[in-house]
């Protein structure tokens, strides 16, 4: 019963990840690509959670935390780079 739900969910999430990859490849602007990459990171978190339910192990929870942190930091750094052309700014007043 639970296996059917989990496998169908894995299939749906993988299909939507392929859709995000389409947006990464095609996206007209760089912000679109960064946005789709952020969504792919969130999807990878979901896939890891479902796989940890299927394997009945708690060993992947650190992976979930680390993926969340790394996806957030990467998105913030990329958006700072898009906006100002540098990641760490030294002059605070624009």
């Amino acid at each position, binding site marked *: 019963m639970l296996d059917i739900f989990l496998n169908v969910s894995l299939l749906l999430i993988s299909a939507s990840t392929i859709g995000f990859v389409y947006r990464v490849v095609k996206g007209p602007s760089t*912000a679109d690509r960064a946005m789709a990459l952020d969504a792919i990171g969130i999807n990878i978190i979901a896939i890891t959670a479902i796989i940890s*339910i299927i394997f009945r192990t708690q060993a992947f929870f650190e992976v979930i935390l680390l993926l969340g942190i790394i996806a957030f930091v990467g998105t913030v750094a990329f958006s700072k780079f898009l906006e100002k052309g540098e990641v760490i700014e030294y002059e605070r007043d624009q």
Partner: protein
Amino acid sequence: MNVISEIVVGALVLIGALLTVVTMIGLIRLPDTYTRSHAASKSATLGVLFILVGCLLYFWIDTGHISARLILAIVFVFITSPIAGHLLGRAAYYSGVPLSDKTVRDDLKTKQQKKLTHHE
């Protein structure tokens, strides 16, 4: 694991997966960077939150104690995903990504023009 807890966990995970599919449809079909950011930041966050809550419930029923790491992950994703969406939309606007043709009003543009005329 009895049957009803299996059904509850499976339904939570399936709702999360369906919300992720909604995100995919929005990210492909919507016409604009900003509307796509709306789809990517809101429904993707809700989908992954449903899946993580299902995972938390499963391990709570299975082992008898709540995993603190999973609660930390849920809170972290819930806090940081709207921030990432906001920063990306802001970066897209200031780096000159055009709005869609069907856009009715642009509040940030009128506000900036007002600020410029005020300075002069």
